[in-house]
Each structure stands twice: as structure tokens, then as C-alpha cells.
């Protein structure tokens, strides 16, 4: 049913439709509305689950780990400092191959303190072994949240659904919330192959010597690569039921014959899509929905025929440069005629990404490729010696 909902409210309802057994979370802006909405659903008797209001994000992640291992669907959400505080547990969940779902309401990381949106938090845990899916709008946030549970449980891998803080979480958008019956048809009851059960006692989380460690890591990597097939399959199954696709690994918009492409993650995609339509610009917009696993082949396909690729990202590695940019460049090197890659960090700590950005980006492709630059740095705001 089409309705206008705030992103957080829509995500909470999507989670509830998945019938989680345990939800654990700790408040942090801009994730708070998600858990507050879930708490309200529980209080109203609309969602029957154990809601564990923990004393920290470290514990939130630990509670869902324990719950999922003991046999129930489990969900948590966080952002920024919370994601970093969880980091140790995130690696642990992934290494144990426990299928939980987490919403990251993307926010900058302190210092300097900022509650506003960028992707430094989820990028900081990109190597933790979680699947990471980015959402371009709130419809995608709803659909991806529901798909995430099926993905996680199929692959026994945790899934992080990345949703831009404020830009999506606090924005009212018209969207379709699926019916309970649709979700029930799509998402089978929770199952975990190594469930902790006194009738069938298993030991989880053992000490692994160098004889086996490499193989366990290999198996994890393989499972992540298998997700490259399963992510589009799950999206296709969702499309069969609802008629909506989120693009699978990568979504492409714009003319096939375009020579210039822009690769981005999250809500900036929506801004660029509007700008492209307004200017009727001949650019291909590429949304990297799956950042982990990194869809090398799909990206190569999407970039076939491009001469210029602009990679826009909302985080970077100080002293090195773009994160997505470096990975995209490496992937495209394998093409016979790789596009030139221009890599920019934009929208840091909530800096607005206006419609006019498209025009300025396109202008930038006229000169030598920028290996990496932070877009729109206003040097006049810095003391002389820092410029």
C-alpha cells in the first residue's frame, strides 16, 4: 500500500514484517527513530519480540549474535560511533557466520563531532566480512531490509543495510510497504544450521590454529563471493512478489550510449538522477548497491563503453584517498579500454550535495583525471597555514 512514511518508520515496519524474535539496540542519532518505532510496535502489541534495550552498541551486537546463534531472527541498528564501538563484535559475528541484519543509519565519525551524514562509519568496517548494501531511497531501504534477512539466512552471513542518516532516515517519502503475506511468502522461517540446542550440543567459536585459519578465511571469502549470485537472485524473487527491483548488485540509469558515467552509493544517486533528468545530460548513473561483496564483473559490464567514470564517495582514507575509487579503478583496469577515473569525496559530515554538482562534475572530466580530491573544499575557512 502506498503511503507517506518517514524513512526510519518505514524501516521499522519492514523489520517488523520480517517477524524478528529479538531486537537489540542502543540509541544514536540518526538511528534513534528506527528503534523508537520498533519499541512502539512492541508496546502496541503489533510486534511480538524480545526488545533488549542494551547498555551499549557493543552489547547490542553481542545480544543479536547470541540470539541468532540460539535460533531466532535478530536485528539491530546503529550509526557512527556506535558502529565503531561494535566493530570488534561485527568481525566476530561475520567470522562465526551468524546471520543477523543491521541497519547503519550512515553518519560521520568523530572528531570533529558531527551528527550528519557521510559513509565513514560503514566504510570503517568494510573488511569485517559483512555484506554491505547501500540504499538510494527509502523504498530501497524497505525492500533491502526485507531482502537482507533472506540473504543473511541463505548465506549464513550478516548483512548491513546502509541508509543515509537524515537524508533518508528523517525524510518523509511516499513508498509501498509490502503486505505481511508478501513478506511471509518471500521470507521462510528463520533457520540456522549450527543452532545452539541442548539436544544437539555444538561448540561455536573455537580456537583455530594456523593449520586451519587460512581455510576458514577462504570459506568466508567464498561465501561472500557466492553472494554475488545470491544478491540478484533474492532481488529477482522479491520483484516477482512485489514488482519492484532494487537493482541487485548495481543499478544503472541513463542512456546506454553515454560516454560519461558516475558511480556512487546511497542517496546521492537520487540527487544525480534528478539533476540528470533536469539537464537531460548524456550520463550513465551507476548505483553501487552492493559494496561488499564488490561486484567487479557487474561494474565492468556497467562501465563498458565509458570513456570517463566519475566516482563519488562520502568517505575516504586520509593519506591515501578514495576507497570506492581505488576499488573501482582496480576493477576497471582489467577492461580492454578502461574509462579514465575521476575520484571525488563529496558530502562529508552532511555537506549538501546540490543538483548543480552534476554540471561541475561533468566539467571536471574535461581536464586530466583527478586521482582523488575532496570536492568543494572552501580554503577560506581554513587558517592560512592549513590551506
Amino acid at each position, binding site marked *: 500500500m502506498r503511503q507517506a512514511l518517514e524513512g526510519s518508520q518505514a524501516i521499522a515496519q519492514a523489520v517488523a514484517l520480517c517477524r524478528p524474535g*529479538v531486537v537489540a539496540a542502543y540509541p544514536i542519532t540518526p538511528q534513534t527513530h528506527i528503534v523508537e518505532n520498533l519499541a512502539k510496535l512492541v508496546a502496541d502489541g503489533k510486534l511480538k519480540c524480545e526488545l533488549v534495550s*542494551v547498555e551499549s552498541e557493543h552489547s547490542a*551486537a553481542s545480544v543479536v549474535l547470541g540470539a541468532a546463534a540460539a535460533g531466532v531472527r*535478530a536485528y539491530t541498528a546503529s550509526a557512527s560511533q556506535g558502529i565503531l564501538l561494535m566493530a570488534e563484535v561485527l568481525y566476530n559475528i561475520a567470522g562465526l557466520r551468524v546471520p543477523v541484519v543491521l541497519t547503519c543509519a550512515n553518519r560521520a565519525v568523530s572528531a570533529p563531532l558531527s551528527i550528519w551524514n557521510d559513509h565513514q562509519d560503514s566504510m570503517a568496517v568494510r573488511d569485517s566480512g559483512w555484506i554491505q548494501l547501500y540504499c538510494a531511497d527509502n523504498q530501497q531501504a524497505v525492500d533491502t531490509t526485507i531482502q537482507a534477512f533472506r540473504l543473511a539466512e541463505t548465506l549464513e552471513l550478516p548483512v548491513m543495510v546502509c541508509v543515509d542518516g537524515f537524508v533518508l532516515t528523517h525524510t518523509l517519502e511516499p513508498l509501498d510497504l509490502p503486505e505481511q503475506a508478501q513478506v511471509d511468502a518471500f521470507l521462510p522461517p528463520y533457520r540456522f544450521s549450527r543452532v*545452539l540446542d*541442548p*539436544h544437539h550440543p*555444538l561448540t561455536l567459536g*573455537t*580456537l583455530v590454529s594456523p593449520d586451519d585459519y587460512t581455510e576458514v578465511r577462504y570459506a568466508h571469502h567464498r561465501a561472500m563471493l557466492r553472494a554475488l549470485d545470491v544478491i540478484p537472485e533474492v532481488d529477482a524473487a522479491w520483484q516477482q512478489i512485489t514488482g519492484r527491483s532494487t537493482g541487485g548488485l548495481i543499478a544503472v540509469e541513463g542512456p546506454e550510449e553515454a560516454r560519461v558515467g558516475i558511480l556512487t552509493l546511497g542517496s546521492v544517486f537520487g540527487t544525480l538522477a534528478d539533476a540528470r533528468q533536469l539537464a537531460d545530460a548524456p550520463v550513465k548513473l551507476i548505483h553501487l548497491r552492493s559494496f561488499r561483496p564488490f561486484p567487479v564483473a557487474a561494474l565492468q559490464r556497467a562501465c563498458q563503453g565509458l570513456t570517463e567514470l566519475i566516482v563519488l564517495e562520502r568517505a575516504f582514507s586520509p593519506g591515501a584517498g578514495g576507497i570506492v575509487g581505488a576499488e573501482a579503478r582496480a576493477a576497471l583496469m582489467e577492461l580492454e579500454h578502461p574509462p579514465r577515473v575521476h575520484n571525488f569525496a563529496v558530502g562529508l559530515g552532511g555537506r549538501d550535495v546540490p543538483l548543480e554538482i552534476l554540471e561541475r562534475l561533468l566539467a571536471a572530466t574535461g581536464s586530466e583525471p583527478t586521482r582523488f580530491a575532496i570536492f568543494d573544499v572552501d580554503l577560506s575557512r581554513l587558517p592560512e597555514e592549513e590551506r
Partner: protein
Amino acid sequence: MSTQEISLEELRQRQSRFRGLEAGHRACLGCGQALAARWVLEAAGPDVVVANATGCLEVFTTPWPESAWRVPWLHSLFENTGAVAAGLEAALKVQGKTAKALAFAGDGGTFDIGFQALSGLLEREHDVLYVCYDNEGYMNTGVQRSGSTPHAAATTTSPAGRARLGKRHLKKDILAIIASHHIAYAATASIAYPEDLKRKVRQALLITGPTFLHLHAPCPLGWGHDGSLSVEVARLAVQTGLFPLIEMERGQVIGVMPLRTIRPVADYLKLQGRFGHLFRDDPRAREELEHLQALADHNIEVFNLRADRPDPADSEGADTVRRGRRRF
């Protein structure tokens, strides 16, 4: 690793004494924790799910692909055991299962790094029995001081030397902190008194809600005594008053194990290398000894440990007697 479906009833019949922790693990000779964990599970039975913190107990029982556990068991990290156990419990509850969630952690995982998660577990009243296996130091990483290391004990990070006489700070009074969470049951126990220990486990498991057991478990390697003396050392800790065996309900002391023969702390300390420096000919060492004796005396007064008259129920040692409450 192959496992086999077997009913709990069948399991109980096959093993008159349930062994949740099997022999063949890799603990040191005389490891107090190994003994303690075996007894805890003997009392708790098979219908449990265990969350275990990083530490010796975790490491010596689960070198992949082996496991000494006959109960479902999950090790996640060092400091999150309280939270993992809370997750287990929430999931068991949602599924309507009868199994009880247990949390096992060392003193480092309890007093120090895992304290926040433990406090949260107690405050939120999860139905979990949390067992702290207290060997008074970070033993897994090679005997470093913890918040539980007793005053004046030497560890690798609180060594005894010319300028310092071991740990400068006091052992944290964890039970008092636990008690201030108003939980229904908290107790101390020792591997020297197995029947008392097991009774306390059963007592705790009768309660729905968080319960806490603080188990004193000597570590021959870290404490510097012969492995054959672990039980003796543990007994002396109790008999000197340094580790009183007490039970608390909702923050009130409701039972203590009385001491018929109170031993001087020196009897306990001199068996252990970690206190060896206190027996040097040095006035500061003598002062520390007096200090430790005063701590023991304080416990004896505060908890009224002196068994001033023979207890009719006291046939053997002090280990089966409780004041004011029935025997299990």
C-alpha cells in the same frame, strides 16, 4: 566432528553424574577452573546453553577441531559475555525453551573489561546464571594483574622488586557491586567445597532472573604453587577469611560458611610464589602481611564468620554448614 541426536532423559540415564565438561582438555595440572566448570555443569545438568568469555577456560577446552563440552557452547569475545548470554536467553525465551543460559568468564572478563555487559545483564534482569571463575589475574595472557588480583600479589604487570611489593591496589569487592544490582541471588563458592558449590549452582538455577556465582579457583601456574595443592590453597583462602563463602539475596547477606578453625593468612600466602616477597626480611613486607591479615580479620568481623560454638549439623569440616537456611 559428528554429533548425534539424543534425548535429555536418555543422557541423564546414561550418566548418573552429568559431565558437561569432559576430560582430555588441555588445562594445566591442578587447574582450579577446570574443576570448577565441571562441577558447575554437574549441578546444572544438560539443559543449558553456555556463553563463554575469552580466557583460559575457553582456550583449553576448544582447540579446533576438538571440544571438551557436552553442552551447547558459544565463545564470542572477551568482554561481551554478559550480552551474548542475554541474547541466548532472549532467544530461548522467545522459543519457549526450558534451557537455562549460563555465562562463564574469568575475573578479567568479569571485574574489568566485561563489567559493563555484566552490569547491563543484571540490570535488565535476564534469566542467566553468570559464573565468574576467579583465578585472580589474566592467566590466559601470561599472569597479568586484574581488578581481582589481591593486594600485594606479584604478577607480570605488578611484579615485586626493590621498589614495589606486588600489586598496590585492593582486590575489587565484586560481590558488593553485584549485590547493589538488587539481584535475587549472588554467592561466592570455592573449589575446596564442591558440595557447597554445587548446591549454590542449583539454588541459583531455581531462580528466574539474573544470578551470580563468584568461584574462587586457584591457578597453580599463576599463583606459584604445586598443582597438587590447588584444593588445599583454595581451602586456606576460605579458612583464613580472605575469601569468605557467603550468599546474598537482594543485596542482603543470608548465609555464610562459618569457620571452625581460623587460620592465619601467612599459612595461605606462604604456599604461593606470588606472595613469596612478603616473607623477605623487610619491614615493608611485614607491614604488607599485617595489612593482609587485617583484611581477613575485617571479613571475619563483617560477615560474622566465626563459628563460636560447634554446630550440631557440622560433622566433618566447615563445608556443608549454613546458618539460618536449610541444607540442600
